[in-house]
């Protein structure tokens, strides 16, 4: 059984200090885990679209981080960025193993309704959300990653740059291009839906504010 070495205040310690301790002290690693488990889970969840795989991959991220913590050295890459890179690699392997990206149905998406969401979403807004999620999933990996880090994790461009190994300017530019691509993809999806729905029921076109 591990006991806390004297003079170690895990809650107050910076990541770099915790990493140094974590090489011989699992409690220190536990504190790092507490700090980042939800962030990593969110990242993985939005890349896999289901909670089971998100849990499995999140666990693998932390096991891998613990196994390789001796080899982690802070060369300008924060521990959090290192974790996200592990997560990114594992998710990439997961997608490769699954052959192609999963496109979940609207019913499945509603079945996986995200915690904390209001239940009064109308069918229309549900369809819009599904369309947007489908469009996001059709983007290249790096663009999906950028959107998740920006909107779900609320990271700055500088932090995103550290994870994605790009400059802040490159991240800004990528974000702009991502929005343009997403707009085009949504428009393409809407056209497709309108054509397939033709004759079944009228469909309201999305109005831009």
């Amino acid at each position, binding site marked *: 059984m591990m006991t806390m070495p004297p003079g170690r205040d895990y809650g107050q310690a910076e990541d770099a200090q915790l990493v140094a301790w974590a090489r011989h002290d699992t409690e220190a*690693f*536990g504190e790092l*885990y507490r700090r980042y488990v939800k962030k990593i889970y969110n990242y993985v969840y939005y890349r896999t679209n289901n909670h089971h795989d998100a849990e499995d991959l999140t*666990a693998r991220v932390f096991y891998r981080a613990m196994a390789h913590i001796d080899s982690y050295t802070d060369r300008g890459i924060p521990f959090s960025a290192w974790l996200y890179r592990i997560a990114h690699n594992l998710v990439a392997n997961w997608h490769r193993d699954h052959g192609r990206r999963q496109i979940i149905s609207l019913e499945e998406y509603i079945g996986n309704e*995200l915690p904390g969401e209001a239940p009064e979403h109308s069918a229309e807004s549900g369809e819009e*959300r599904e369309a947007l999620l489908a469009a996001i999933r059709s983007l290249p990996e790096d663009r999906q990653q950028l959107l998740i880090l920006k909107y779900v994790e609320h990271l700055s461009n500088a932090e995103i740059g550290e994870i994605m190994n790009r400059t802040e300017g490159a991240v800004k*530019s990528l974000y*702009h291009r991502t929005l343009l691509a997403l707009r085009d993809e949504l428009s393409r999806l809407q056209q497709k839906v309108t054509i397939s729905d033709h004759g079944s029921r009228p469909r309201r076109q999305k109005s831009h*504010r």
Partner: protein
Amino acid sequence: MPQTFIPDDYRIADLLNDYASGVAPLDVLLARYGVTAERVRDLAVLADQLREVLVTVSPAASFVDDLYRELVGHKRAARTLWGRVQNMPPRVKLAAGIGGLTLTAGVLLITVRSLSHILETLANRAEAAGESAA
């Protein structure tokens, strides 16, 4: 403040990044970057939709707690032999102790018997050599 030589795309990218970060309302950013609303309105609407859809999710508390216990209880100390011995259950430790003692005793017994055999052989040879010399 953007300079006049910055191409439009960069200004729009800066504006959209500021908008996504919630730096200021859209109309303020439009004035700041000197961009017309028509050029970014649809992208700003898209950014609003992304903010609504890409919400933070919470993992199950049981998953978080179980994984914490697994990780912190993980036998990192088991990298060394002593660490492995320390983490063994008492019954295994007892069995390992008895096994170790038996093995040690066996090796000692064989060693002693071999040594005594060698000494005996040497003594016999010496005795035979003495008799033949006599």
